């Protein structure tokens, strides 16, 4: 199947998934106890105020009617207005999503740069000192809660050494990259530990497998064996985990964003859930779903390329 056809088919397949997700989110957020008005007003809310404001927001209508109105506006490219922030949801997505994408991409790159070479070292030096120290170090990284690790990095590299700013997002692209380095590192540490462990096990598995011995027997150079046979096969499950982790990173970097004071999508999402800001939850879910699906698509393409049959 040519790549373009493959892509087109996958993108078409995306539509039912998105509709399914939208329906579930739409219903679920409305099933949560409370409503946006009393969530914001808290103690103060008089019953009459809550009813009046909910009526003004159209929340007194049957859920089916609300869904129909929502679907209609989605098709005209309008995701509605935030109830809490009083801004179009599309504007909010445009403000927040690029930050999160940048953060995720940087974290993914840092994780790969750390995990892949060290996994090879650890696997080739199996159960020797290098292996033990690499695994020990990654285990410490993996075992630290993000809010704790982030705070330590901020204290050491931000406040003490002053190499990096103490949180915030900065102005302009290069400044963003500078501000996002420590948070990306925070996210990358646990991801790289997972990748490293998986990759190490996979490399050992492949090294022990018959076809490597066979290649050795055929007299292929060790380096060629490593790159052509070992790496490709070892990468399959690692790529899977990588793709899935990126998916959760995109929507799940809430605590990192909070600790580093980054105005990202995760924080907006959590605030909106707590504030029962239905339009924002719906809109952000939609946007993230598209992003995650694209990530999966890339993983699938990568996997197809790594597949031994294709590689052969």
């Amino acid at each position, binding site marked *: 199947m040519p790549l373009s056809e493959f892509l087109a088919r996958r993108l078409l397949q995306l539509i039912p998934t998105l509709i399914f997700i939208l329906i579930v989110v739409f219903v679920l957020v409305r099933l949560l106890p409370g409503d946006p008005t*009393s969530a914001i007003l808290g*103690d103060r809310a008089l019953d009459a*105020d809550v009813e009046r404001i909910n009526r003004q927001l159209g929340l007194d209508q049957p859920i089916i009617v609300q869904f129909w109105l929502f679907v209609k506006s989605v098709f005209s490219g309008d995701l509605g207005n935030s109830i809490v922030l009083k801004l179009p949801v599309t504007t909010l997505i445009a403000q927040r999503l690029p930050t999160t994408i940048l953060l995720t991409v940087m974290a993914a790159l840092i994780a790969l740069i750390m995990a892949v070479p060290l996994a090879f070292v650890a696997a080739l030096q199996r159960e020797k000192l290098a292996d033990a120290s690499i695994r020990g170090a990654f285990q410490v990284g993996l075992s630290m809660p993000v809010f704790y690790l982030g705070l330590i990095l901020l204290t050491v590299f931000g406040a003490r050494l002053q190499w990096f700013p103490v949180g915030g997002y900065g102005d302009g692209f290069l400044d963003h990259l500078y501000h996002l380095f420590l948070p990306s590192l925070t996210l990358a540490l646990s991801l790289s530990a997972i990748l490293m462990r998986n990759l190490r096990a996979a490399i050992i598995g492949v090294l022990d497998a018959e076809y490597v011995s066979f290649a050795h027997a055929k007299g292929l150079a060790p380096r060629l064996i490593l790159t052509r046979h070992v790496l490709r096969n070892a990468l399959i499950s690692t790529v899977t985990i990588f793709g899935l982790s990126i998916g959760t990173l995109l929507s799940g970097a809430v605590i990192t964003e909070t600790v580093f004071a980054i105005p990202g999508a995760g924080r907006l999402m959590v605030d909106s859930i707590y504030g029962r800001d239905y339009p924002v939850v719906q809109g952000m879910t939609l946007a993230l779903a598209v992003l995650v699906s694209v990530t999966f698509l890339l993983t699938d393409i990568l996997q197809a390329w790594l597949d031994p049959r294709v590689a052969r």
Partner: protein
Amino acid sequence: MKFFKAAALSAAVLLGSTVSALAVERGGVMTYGRYADSLFLDPVLNDANVDIWILSNMYDTLLLPTDDGKGVKPGLASDYKVSDDGLTVTLTLRDGIKFSDGSAITPEDVVFSLDRAINPDNGIWNFLVSSIDSVDSPDAKTVVLHLKHPDPAIIPALTVFNTAIMPKAQFMASAGTTDKEKAEDFQTHPVGSGPFVLQSWDRGSTMKLVRNPYYWDMGEDGKPLPYLDGVTFEVIPDDATRILRLQSGEIDGAEFIPFARVSELKADPSINMQLFPSTKVNYITLNVRPTVDGKENPLANVKVRQAMNYALNKDAIIQIVTQGVGTPMTSFMSTATPLHSGDTPLFPYDPAKAKQLLAEAGYPNGFKTSILALAGNQDDAGITTAMQQMFAAVGIDLEIKQVDNATRTDLYRNGNFDMRTGGWTDDIADPSEITSYFAYSPVIEAMHSGWSNDEVNSLFEQSQSETDPAKRAQEYARIQEIYNSEGPTLPLFETPYPVALRKNVQGFVQIPLGNNIFRSAWLQK
């Protein structure tokens, strides 16, 4: 108002010491770290502290609150007069006052702004000015309020954010047909009457205010306020990060310092750790309906409530939750609230008395009950965990239910709870607001507790149109006496507003109502 965390009056009043003999210096931008961003900066339609507490920097009111939060001083109006029958208030506008775009502030703008504030369809704050029947302007300098009945709280009400003055022409020229749509558009290019005006707002991250060159008030050096060229708000939700940024000098001030860090920052030579007096009270609200969820409710018995009060070691809770910064409560309203009465801490720790009262109430072996706590809130976790231990000692088995804010609100609004944690700050320098919510049952059934007391209700109604200050004080003393002894709460402690500033920041104040006042702030070079 209450909403997230906040703070009250402590003995440590440091205000005086910051206004020193130093000559003021002009210029510079002060950067202030906040725990959360604002949501909607419209004086009338906003609904949260994150808006209220900074709005007064952008929009001035006719009268201004004094720095101690109890009094009133002239604002855009230089003078006011209440008629002898208490039914009309006449205000004289200051000469030459202008909006931030240079256009004049006219009586027409004032009438427009107040009409918006009293409109019952607008927002949730109109109850503060519900006594106003109409507003008109007989001449180019005068505005007259006609009241439905005498209102002892009308003068402080004119210092509250929702009566701030906005430019009619510019507001009406905004896009949209309804008032709400216009307000949403107007806040993207606001024109204000306060010392600063919004320049840019990067949601969730940074808000920049610049000085209003047309502001009317004069500084100590005889030139117009404010001293600062601007104020920048940085949103830094994590407490520890906010402190780190302050210590590294990237910001000049930081709000809501966790009490656990106060003594450490007091010792930091580059930091000026302030505990501004506040109207914040922290308490537990009890559901006192005879049955909850179809089951008999022990909390309906006043002796049980008193027993629970005696069973709590409030000093220990103050140590655990506020590291000793908080102070015990002497009434349900804070000591910074006008007409507060009471000078001894309520219900001193006495477990023996608690057991005796429980036995008298018919629960010699205690009972099982539960409390709603805000999930993820460290103070709530500390309070409820300590309560659980203290109650266990008298036989009360307390289950802690951590839920998110909206769920909690839903549960207590429907009367479907045993107990809940709570916090409150006043918005107006008058006891009527807190009393109407806490004690006067027709408003929200005394904090949704289901408590009702005929004497309190009629005293409150009388006090609402009582023009004799002495009589009003008596009425409030009696209300507090009743509520504090048999009301639906477990009062815990009062807390100040913990704000940390760089040593060179001068003249900044957070008043007891919570407003952050930057108009006289300046940076020492």
